[in-house]
């Protein structure tokens, strides 16, 4: 191939840089994956060598990122339609669908194999299932079929602390299931609060969203119900081996705040919401982010106290 032909082929489409491949891994989603997986790993009662812990978190993050690349491969047709996703590497023409598929599959296999070698088969199996769940069950099957896509798809985002826990212990226990349940129950009210105030073009892309299929009134009711169901799960975690008074106080505070916000959302109608430019919905969405980081941050503090040999329940005289 001559230089001239190379230049001719290059001028047709902008070339992908390193950042475009990194963008395929959905780095913002990865932040949550890394943080919750790290908490799952450090809260576990089994000490892990720092290098092994670092490798485990890295491969969980890479596996999560790879599933994001496969999601972009599958959804490139709707990403082209929606304003928010139009500048992603595939719709922008910098990376082809085939390249994204190859990149996602290679990283998925590598992440699972390396996690198995670095830790154990339970953690690797959970990571493989998470990738399968996000790509096949959520992206290919549920996302364009049911308005409950957020609920079931949210499970994929709930697995990382469970994988972190399994990386340390080699097990699935009540504690890891409850950490999963907290994120699983938290995801729907978090996203539906966003859906209420974001003018999205999911409808044009043929993705059923609860706000469109069942209306905004039903969405408000759903937020309220899920927040009620979330509270006992989140508070209950305080009474397991990874909880303690600091976590309990944090969970009571944040769940109280979340319940109050969800109640306010439920009581409002569109006229009231438009009058204050969806102020309450925006506030609840913002608080929901603090909620998750607050609860998992408290678990991290409890784990640090245990590592230092302190019994946090005994410290408060319980």
């Amino acid at each position, binding site marked *: 191939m001559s*230089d001239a032909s190379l230049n001719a082929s290059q001028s047709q489409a902008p070339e992908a840089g*390193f950042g475009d491949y990194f963008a395929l891994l959905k780095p913002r989603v990865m932040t949550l994956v890394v943080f919750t997986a790290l908490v799952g790993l450090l809260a576990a009662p089994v000490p892990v*060598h720092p290098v*092994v812990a670092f*490798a485990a978190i890295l491969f969980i993050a890479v596996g999560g990122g790879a599933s994001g690349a496969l999601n972009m491969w599958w959804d490139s047709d709707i990403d082209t339609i929606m304003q928010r996703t139009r500048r992603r590497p595939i719709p922008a023409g910098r990376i082809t669908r085939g390249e994204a598929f190859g990149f996602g599959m290679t990283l998925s296999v590598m992440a699972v194999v390396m996690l198995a070698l670095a830790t154990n088969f339970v953690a690797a199996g959970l990571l493989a299932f998470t990738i399968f769940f996000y790509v096949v069950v959520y992206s290919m099957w549920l996302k364009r079929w049911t308005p409950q896509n957020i609920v079931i798809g949210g499970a994929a985002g709930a697995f990382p602390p469970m994988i972190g826990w399994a990386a340390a212990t080699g097990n699935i226990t009540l504690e890891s299931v409850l950490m999963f349940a907290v994120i699983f129950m938290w995801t729907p009210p978090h996203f539906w609060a966003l859906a209420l105030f974001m003018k999205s073009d999911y409808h044009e892309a043929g993705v059923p969203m609860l706000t469109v299929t069942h209306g905004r009134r039903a969405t408000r009711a759903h937020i309220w119900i899920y927040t009620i169901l979330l509270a006992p799960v989140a508070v209950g975690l305080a009474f397991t081996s990874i909880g303690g008074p600091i976590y309990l106080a944090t969970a009571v505070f944040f769940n109280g705040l979340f319940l109050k916000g969800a109640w306010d959302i439920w009581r409002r109608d569109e006229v009231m919401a438009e009058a204050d430019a969806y102020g309450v919905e925006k506030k609840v969405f913002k608080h929901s982010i603090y909620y998750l980081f607050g609860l998992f941050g408290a678990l991290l503090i409890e784990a640090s106290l245990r590592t230092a040999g302190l019994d946090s329940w005994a410290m408060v005289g319980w």
Partner: protein
Amino acid sequence: MEFRPSHELHKRRFGRNLGLGLVLAGFVALVFGLTIAKVSTDEFRMPTQVQGGTQ
């Protein structure tokens, strides 16, 4: 001797190639670190040679 000036394509792909190089170097370092961490634990035992294969 004169080096050929680098092609525009090489300049354009420099960032991507450098990034990939650093990722690969990091991966090699991580595998090395993992190996050291694994063989340093008390659980690690060298495979012993027995009749008919390793154990």
